[in-house]
């Protein structure tokens, strides 16, 4: 056995172990949702059942949490995407010193523990007599989700040629037309990715929501309280639904990405052909 084939094997084993490490716990957790055992476990395997899914389906509290989560997530997307985009554009057209100063404040929420964001949001709005509730959860989540959107849009802005704005102005476009026809279309991919990330970040969020939610439930809080108060395999059923949903999203995302990549490659090929003509 040569050393290269040996290292190849080591690499394969390492990658395989990591994938197993990342996926096995999820499979065990999801599988327990199908096991007809009162305690959530895949072992011993008592038998296949759909009763945990029926329990989940008939749980009114779960549906309330779904509605709340959706509402909060959509609000977070609607607020954080415009804010993050505006902040990125602003950041991209100020002097370097102001830029690094503002940048520090903008990324700070990403590096702040969720509990701190949650408590500070709660206290701040309380001084205006706004009670804890989902509105505050939205505000707290926006404070760090907007930073993710800002980073995505800022990265996309690096590939933007400001000369295009000047060209459009020179051709008689107003500032509004420049933004609508030239700048924003260029930013669409980043804005779209930002919206997806904002949505998922909001749905997944636990820490900020825990301190700001008041008495309302979101999905993560619902699962959290279920875990604390007597575990039943309905949580596993819920996890399985979520995992399957994620897998479907991942597949769709990958198909779209590959299609876009193929189109880009075709365009590059025709451009190269045009160059030769």
């Amino acid at each position, binding site marked *: 056995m040569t050393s290269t084939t040996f290292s190849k094997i080591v690499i394969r084993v390492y990658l395989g172990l990591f994938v197993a490490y990342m996926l096995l716990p999820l499979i065990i957790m999801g599988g327990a949702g199908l096991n007809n055992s009162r305690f959530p476990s895949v072992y011993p395997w008592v038998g296949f059942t759909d009763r945990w899914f029926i329990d989940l389906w008939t749980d009114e509290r779960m549906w309330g949490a779904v509605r709340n989560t959706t509402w909060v997530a959509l609000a977070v997307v609607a607020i954080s995407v415009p804010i993050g985009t505006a902040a990125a554009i602003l950041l991209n057209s100020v002097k370097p010193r102001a830029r690094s100063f503002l940048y520090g404040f903008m990324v700070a929420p990403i590096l702040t523990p969720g509990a701190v964001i949650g408590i500070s949001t709660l206290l701040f709005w309380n001084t205006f007599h706004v009670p804890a509730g989902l509105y505050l959860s939205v505000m707290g989540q926006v404070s760090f989700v907007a930073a993710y959107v800002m980073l995505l849009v800022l990265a996309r802005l690096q590939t933007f*040629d400001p000369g295009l704005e000047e060209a*459009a102005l020179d*051709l008689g476009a*107003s500032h509004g037309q420049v933004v609508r026809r030239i700048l924003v279309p260029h930013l669409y991919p980043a804005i779209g990715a930002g919206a997806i990330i904002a949505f998922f970040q909001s749905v997944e969020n636990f820490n900020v929501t825990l301190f700001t939610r008041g008495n309302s439930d979101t999905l993560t809080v619902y699962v959290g309280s279920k875990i604390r108060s007597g575990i039943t395999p309905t949580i596993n059923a819920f996890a399985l639904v979520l995992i399957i949903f994620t897998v479907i999203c991942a597949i769709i995302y990958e198909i779209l990405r590959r299609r876009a990549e193929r189109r880009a490659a075709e365009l590059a090929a025709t451009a190269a052909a045009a160059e030769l003509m």
Partner: protein
Amino acid sequence: MSEDVQLSKICMDFGSFRAVNNVDVTIKPGEFFSFLGPSGCGKTTILRLISGFMEPTEGSVKIGGKDMKGIRPNARPTALIFQNLALFPLMPVWENITFGLEVRGVPKAQRRAKAEELLQLVDLHDSADKRISQLSGGQKQRVAIARALAVEPKVMLLDEPLSALDLKLRQHMRAELRAIQKRTGVTFIYITHDQGEALAMSDRVGVMSQGILQQVATPQEIYNNPVNGFVASFVGENNVFVGTVKGKSGDIATFETAKGQFNARLGANVSVGDTTKLFVRPEFCTLQKTASKSANSIAVEVTEIAFEGNFVNVFVRDESGDTHMVQVQNDPSIPTPALHSKAHMIFDPQSCMILSEATDTRSGH
């Protein structure tokens, strides 16, 4: 269809740096005018001042007699062709071309017709629905020109648009640009650092250095009668001799150098007693076996021969070790001088000039 552009005593400062210094020139309606100079000479700043992306620190820009102060780029009768063309990558060709009409609220059908018409004008058929990334460099060039023409500008401003093309295409596009300008009659103001481009296309050329307009004249005048050493050496090749002006009779002066005395025409701003330089073009020099009585001559040895195709560059070394160049037409019937042969480099007093350095730079600043 076209307007004149009047630049009156324009200065442009960036902090303490004066990028444009007292430029004063009127570009006539329908003229093809080039600003020629090395990078950093202020020519791009002038273009941005005319297009309205900057306002001059001092002086005024008038287009068609109208002062442009405070008028934004989108309200000026100019269209700019950017160095990198700045075509909108997300729009098809025809939308690019008619973007200026779209923002003015022209209906779609009318815009489409206009796009087709302009594509004919720039000789680019069946490309209306292509994407920008599908076009070759030359095709992109044409789209950029069509896009600028679509808004029916009185003045076209071109910022080295040919610099990204390869040599052959560049030469082709020179003729094309010139033809489009003649067809449309629009005033073209062209920025370039390539003297070949400027001389080949322009009605008049303004040579710039360090923010100062050194000379404005026809291409022939610029080449044959440069006003100073900068213009002479930036446009075309020269053999240069350093020396002192001794005396003059008529427009011919005697010039004392370490390599002997020469007769030459005396340029502006040079007077007897000045120590300066003498410039002679390589194609005005000849090599002969014997020294000349009437013309200037200097004893040399042939050190290198470079065959360039339509002409031959012969490099020679004088007795003090300096190298000069003599350019001769390629003519198979005349034998080229042998390497290391001794000869005399001859040049006529009428074809060489004693010139001052460039006009004093950034004075009073």
